[in-house]
């Protein structure tokens, strides 16, 4: 059986891509486009909304509809697209800076609203595009270009945040585990309501260089070793847990999405059922 390549969604003449050697963005993109192909997404019915950052520049490569927005606000633009036309497949690409740092408010509210979009959050633990400054996911003590003595703050757990905010589907994968990543993306895209896949991904140019993993391959090894299943993670001692993280599906629910609820409310409005 031949596998999906996703190239049908890729603009001609874009390879090699603009990202640094060893960057995980290319694998994340390939996984997403394979998922599109396997789901039979039509270009004209698909809108990819991007934020600002290295991952946010992905729209340059796409043959689907696209909206390249402002830093942190992609989910808010996407919410407008989806709320007006619920038939569209709306996919939102954001970095960790975009999604849970400058855009944290939109992130939790999109999840709470359960708007039927799929957020693919590429977490490289720093601001790749602007030179590797720390972000809201940079772990405590890690080095970045603005935490040269170590990070005094703690980093967000993006999946936990999405879960408590009410997301219908939450999963974490890495670009080392490409096949699983595509499967998570497929599930997320297929799930109605707010879905979020966190993609842990190397930024060797900044995060790797600042944290003794200069080569892309060293970062991939780090993902291979430190990303473990929920079950494996549970067996670790507390000090060990610091260095490891869980991959896999965290949430898979079927609560009604915003548009479904809005149509119910609309029916009530048409019956004249206003409270006042």
């Amino acid at each position, binding site marked *: 059986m031949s596998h999906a390549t996703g190239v049908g969604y890729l*603009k001609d003449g874009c390879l090699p891509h603009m990202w640094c050697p060893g960057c995980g963005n290319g694998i994340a993109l390939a996984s997403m486009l394979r998922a599109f192909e396997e789901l039979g997404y039509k*270009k*004209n*019915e698909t*809108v990819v*909304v991007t934020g*600002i950052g290295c991952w946010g*520049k992905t*729209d*340059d490569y*796409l*043959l*689907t*509809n*696209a*909206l*390249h*927005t*402002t830093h942190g*606000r992609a989910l*808010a*633009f*996407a*919410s*407008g*697209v*989806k*709320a*007006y*036309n619920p*038939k*569209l497949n709306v996919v939102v690409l954001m970095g960790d800076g975009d999604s849970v740092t400058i855009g944290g*408010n*939109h992130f939790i*509210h999109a999840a709470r609203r359960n708007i039927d979009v799929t957020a693919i959050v590429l977490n490289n633990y720093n601001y790749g595009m602007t030179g590797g400054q720390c972000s809201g996911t940079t772990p405590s003590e890690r080095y970045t270009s603005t935490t040269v003595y170590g990070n005094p703050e703690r980093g967000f757990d993006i999946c936990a945040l999405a879960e408590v905010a009410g997301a219908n589907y939450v999963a974490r994968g890495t670009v080392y585990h490409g096949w699983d990543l595509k499967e998570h993306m497929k599930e997320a895209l297929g799930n109605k309501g707010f879905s979020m896949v966190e993609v842990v991904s190397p930024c060797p140019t900044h995060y790797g260089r600042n944290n003794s993993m200069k080569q892309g391959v060293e970062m991939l090894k780090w993902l291979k070793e430190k990303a473990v299943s929920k079950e494996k993670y549970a067996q670790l001692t507390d000090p060990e847990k610091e260095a490891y993280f869980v991959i896999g599906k965290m949430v898979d629910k079927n609560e009604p999405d915003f548009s479904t609820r*809005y149509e119910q*409310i*609309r029916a009530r*409005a*048409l019956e004249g059922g*206003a409270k006042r």
Partner: protein
Amino acid sequence: MQREAKLVQGNEAIAHGAIYAGARFYAGYPITPSSEIAEECSRLMPKVDGVYLQMEDEIASIAAIVGASLAGAKSFTATSGPGFSLMQENLGLAVMGEVPCVVINVQRSGPSTGLATKPAQSDVMQIRWGRHGDQSIIALTPATVKECFTLAVQAFNFAERFRVPVILAADEIVAHMRENIIFPDPGEVQVIDRKKPTVPPEQYKPFEPESDGIAPLAAYGSDYVYHVTSSMHGLDGYSNNDPANAQWRVAQLHRKLERYRDEIVMTKSYDTDDAEVLLIAFGATTRAARAAALEARKNGIKAGVLQLITLWPFADKEIAAHGKGAKKIVVVEMNYSGQVTGEVRRILGPEKDITLVNKYNGQIITPKDILEVLK
């Protein structure tokens, strides 16, 4: 059949005007003195097959209306001072991406939270220049409840025709005032829809102007696939860093409005033919100016009023024409700096006798305040 006049509030008239114009998507975050627009839309939108979406803040509100517009909706939001400040970055995206949409800014006092929620007309320059990057925009300003309705329709017509965000700059006085108006029947007032592409989908370029200077706009989900970006872009909507392209694109954003300037700039004049004293006013201050001019005439002073309906692009030609014959110019506005007065000076020159009548304490400018300087 005799139609009944209704006693309507300015904000309500704006909401009804927007829906009359075909608006079917509202996203917003409540703020006095604009909240009645949100409340009215939350009641009406579900009934007209539209969407009301209350967002988490004003940054998200303008983002959502841009998204909805690209999906094919006539969309709008309403806010006031602090919220309008928050909207600036994404308003810039709407300019750059040539996204039709309407932003109602019911002006209130500042700076910052200021005299919440007293009236002001102090966002004149922010409306024009509030965003980074050189860009142009359309802004209209109503003086009556009827104009709240008609200019809301007009704002959508301009937005749709020229693919720009349009600001409807009301003020707290007009927005909260109640006057009798008759809502027009469908078809009675002209409603314009955006131009859709007619070329085969594979030939569509979302930023390629036709002979009228305006590029047609498809909708996400139609047969046309297209990109919109906040970044500098080529005719195809993909990012493009070529200097020649950037030079053309920035100019195009300005030129498409310059070309239709005479249609966009609207003024009204009252008794200006023989006026020796020309009062220039806009929004709520027009009302005091009119009363003052009528009173002055009783006292033998030939006064007339020029009302600016379009704030931006500025009424250079109209002010030059009306100001030429007048001995004295009086500009009436609710801000300290004389934001409109400065423009009038630029047009009529330093020799001209120009007086500013202003208040910036949240209190209404009265005809008496104006008559003081006419003595």
